[in-house]
């Protein structure tokens, strides 16, 4: 117990806000260009998550406005970042906390979402406050009638919002949230990434309408091309295989469960009485003992056993929300308008107790553009823009679509794009920057299967197309040249009528059709 309380002090000695303030590099705010990009995507992702969880077709408006300084317009400079959505709005009681406190939203529950616990949005607010000393302005309405406007800043040490001003203004009939934030950014250097981000987002969120006005005032509009939303993800309890020591320590601290048996059954995914009993036998821990009596060593022992016990039921995937064929296809069609597209969705699988689903889309020709394989990577619908080469998806695509392209009849410089989407309650990012997937063998296997499947379909398409092309070429050539030969030979030999070549042309064309 002594150890436990010592630990507790360690963890509460620094507020989460302060922790992030000190480690802002980790969260993607390392320089003004990256910060502007990260702030934009965090706020956009919060908006998308909010809309999707309430099954609202998202309409999102983003504007980046440079704050005019007549003396100095060089980068980096102050920008106003405004992100508006038509989401469900935030309960005015909770709104200040949602943006002004770094907190652990749903502590022990897992769900598939772009951001974890909405921390990214708060980080953006924090970063803005640090770099400009200006408060953030939030407008939110849950009924569309009244908009609550908050002007607030974060007390970093206390990890609490400080409300500077609070107003109620008339709404326009739609629910939603708007965040207006001042921050130091470098729009010139961020520009490519920001534009890539919107384009790649549009590819997997064809159900969203996104308007983006960049720092130069140029508008980019990504229209909604389908009205189908992905099924909202559900919250789920953690699977024992994926639970760690710190989680267990907090759970034990907060729980009201009187026995370990109850604790396991009430808080974990697919653990019933039988499983729990068998597990504690395996772990050689008395399942009737009170969770609060566990020593540090006991917790370590239990968590280790949870990881090594093989008879837990595998996680089920109803908590996951893959995009599905229709949505992925709508995105591919509207952004790439390919000549051919196909989608492979793998059955759910799990790694370390976290369920995941791999979806792979393939687009060939059309607006894809030649010059080799292009890969669009996504994790929980977030485009991953950095460190492509380190990503397991890239390794798989390189192995199959590039190194073995002959096997799939893929021509050189093929206009080929692959879209990989991994959705999971916990995406195994290799670093905190959420930019690339670690090479988990389970995920690699599913990616390989999915990529193979779409490449096989592409091969079928290409070989069908090439034989159709050959027949068409033969038809075109013979239909063009044989009549010309007939005409010239008639003129040259001084005959009056064309030779009777039509039957042989007809026979030839029919034969070539038959050979196909």
């Amino acid at each position, binding site marked *: 117990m002594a150890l436990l309380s010592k630990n507790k002090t360690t963890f509460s000695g620094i507020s989460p806000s302060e922790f992030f303030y000190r480690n802002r590099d980790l969260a993607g705010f390392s320089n003004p260009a990256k910060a502007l990009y990260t702030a934009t995507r965090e706020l956009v992702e919060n908006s998308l998550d909010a809309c999707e969880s309430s099954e609202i077709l998202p309409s999102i408006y983003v504007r980046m406005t440079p704050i005019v300084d007549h003396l100095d317009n060089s980068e980096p400079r102050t920008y106003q970042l405004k992100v508006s959505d038509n989401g469900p709005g935030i309960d005015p009681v909770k709104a200040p906390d949602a943006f002004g406190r770094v907190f652990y939203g749903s502590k022990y529950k897992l769900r598939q979402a772009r951001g974890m616990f909405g921390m990214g949005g708060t980080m953006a607010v924090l970063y803005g406050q640090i770099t400009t000393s200006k408060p953030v302005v939030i407008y939110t309405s849950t009924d569309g009638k009244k908009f609550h406007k908050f002007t607030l800043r974060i007390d970093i040490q206390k990890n609490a919002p400080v409300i500077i001003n609070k107003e109620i203004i008339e709404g326009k009939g739609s629910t939603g949230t708007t965040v207006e934030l001042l921050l130091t950014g470098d729009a010139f250097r961020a520009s490519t990434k920001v534009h890539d981000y919107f384009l790649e987002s549009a590819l997997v969120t064809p159900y969203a309408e996104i308007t983006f006005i960049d720092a130069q005032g140029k508008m980019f509009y990504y229209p909604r091309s389908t009205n189908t939303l992905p099924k909202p993800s559900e919250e789920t309890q953690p699977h024992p295989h994926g639970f760690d020591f710190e989680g267990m320590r907090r759970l034990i601290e907060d729980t009201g469960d009187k026995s370990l048996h109850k604790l396991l059954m009430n808080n974990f995914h697919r653990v019933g009485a039988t499983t729990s009993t068998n597990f504690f036998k395996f772990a050689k821990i008395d399942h009737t003992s009170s969770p609060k009596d566990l020593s540090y060593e006991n917790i370590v022992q239990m968590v280790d056993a949870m990881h090594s016990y093989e008879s837990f039921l595998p996680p089920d995937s109803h908590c996951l929300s893959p995009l599905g064929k229709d949505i992925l296809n709508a995105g591919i069609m509207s952004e790439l308008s390919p000549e051919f597209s196909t989608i492979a969705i793998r059955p759910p699988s799990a790694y370390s107790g976290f369920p995941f689903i791999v979806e792979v889309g393939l687009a060939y020709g059309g607006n894809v553009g030649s010059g080799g394989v292009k890969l669009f990577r996504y994790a929980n619908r977030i485009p991953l823009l950095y460190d492509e080469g380190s990503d397991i998806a890239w390794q798989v695509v390189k192995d199959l679509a590039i190194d073995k392209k002959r096997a799939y009849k893929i021509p050189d410089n093929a206009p080929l794009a692959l879209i990989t989407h991994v959705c999971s309650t916990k995406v195994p990012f290799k670093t905190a920057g959420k930019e690339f997937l670690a090479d988990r063998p389970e995920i690699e296997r599913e990616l390989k299967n999915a990529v193979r499947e779409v490449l096989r379909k592409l091969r079928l398409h290409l070989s069908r197309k090439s034989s159709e092309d050959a027949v068409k070429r033969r038809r075109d050539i*013979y239909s063009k*040249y*044989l009549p*010309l*030969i007939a005409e010239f030979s008639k*003129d*040259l*030999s001084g005959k009056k009528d064309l030779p009777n070549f039509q039957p042989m042309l007809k026979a030839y064309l029919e034969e070539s059709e038959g050979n196909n």
Partner: protein
Amino acid sequence: MPKSKKQTKHSKRQNDIEEQKVQIRSQLKQLGEKIYSDLNSQRFPTIHFPSRSVRNIVYDKKTKQYILGSNTVTRTASNIKQIRSVTQLTWLAFFANELMSNKKSSTLRDVYYSSQAYAVDYTDQPESDSIITDLESVISTARERLNIYPEERSAIFGDLDIEYTVPGYEGNRANLSSHPDGYLIGPSLSTADFVGTSAEMIIAIEKGGLFNRFIEEKVHSKYKAIIIDTAGQAPRTTRYMLKRLHKELNLPVYIMTDGDVYGEHIAMVIVSGSAGAAHLRDLTVPSAKWLGIWASDIAKYKLPTIPMTEMDFKRVSELKRDPRYQKGVWNKELDVFLEIKAKCELEAFSKYGLTAIVDKYLPEKLEQAKSM
């Protein structure tokens, strides 16, 4: 103007030419009839002609020139890769026949563009030129006989009376010494009748500059010569012209080139033809003499030189393998080039004054040529 002109029997020549034309047109017509009957009997039209591939070009010791061997190629419309060229060939035969019947002539470039009026597509002019060569092979007749000419660049000057035979000029006469820049050797000139000449020799010279110098220095009257500017490698029309001048007027042909391996080969092509025209006859003057500049003249006349390049050495070793270069002056001079590793231009004689080449070199070399 000397008056003792040789008279040729041009009426007989015209008859020969007319006969030849009738024969060529009937060959073209036969080709058309064969293709027509192929189609009528539900066969894919097929055309055979001698192969012009390197392997089928052989040296004929009798005629001392390259000729085609016995291999033939077949173009058939049943092959998807060949139906286009069969179409092009059929069209070209038709087009040539039209040219001949309308007494019109056309350049290689004209042919390329004319094809577009008939929906026959060529990728580029070289493709069109190569089909023209195919047709030459099919009917064993030079394109000039089909009234298809390359762009002209070579010229002729000297006391030669000609009578045009081209439509609109029939019976018109001209003397080829009346224009000091010389006359372009084109379709009208190469088909004209030779009426008379006082000349006793033909001098073909590689370069326009020297051609003009020869005219200025009155080589035509001093040596009783007809001077021809071959403008580099002599075009076929020019070679055909040389052949006619030699045969019909019975005049010896002398050739003057730069003192380099390319110059030597320009002379050789006039003497014994080129591999590229191995499918054609009547383009050579086997008795023509190469006056120089020989490699050995370079030392003899102490001419300013230019070092030979790698390309020059490569060309020498290529020619050393050519059967025509195995003996005589041809072989000897190649060896001298290899030895002195230098070359020179005709203009090098200007070192001794502008007229040195005409006053000193030419008479000495002509004398030397008599004994060859």
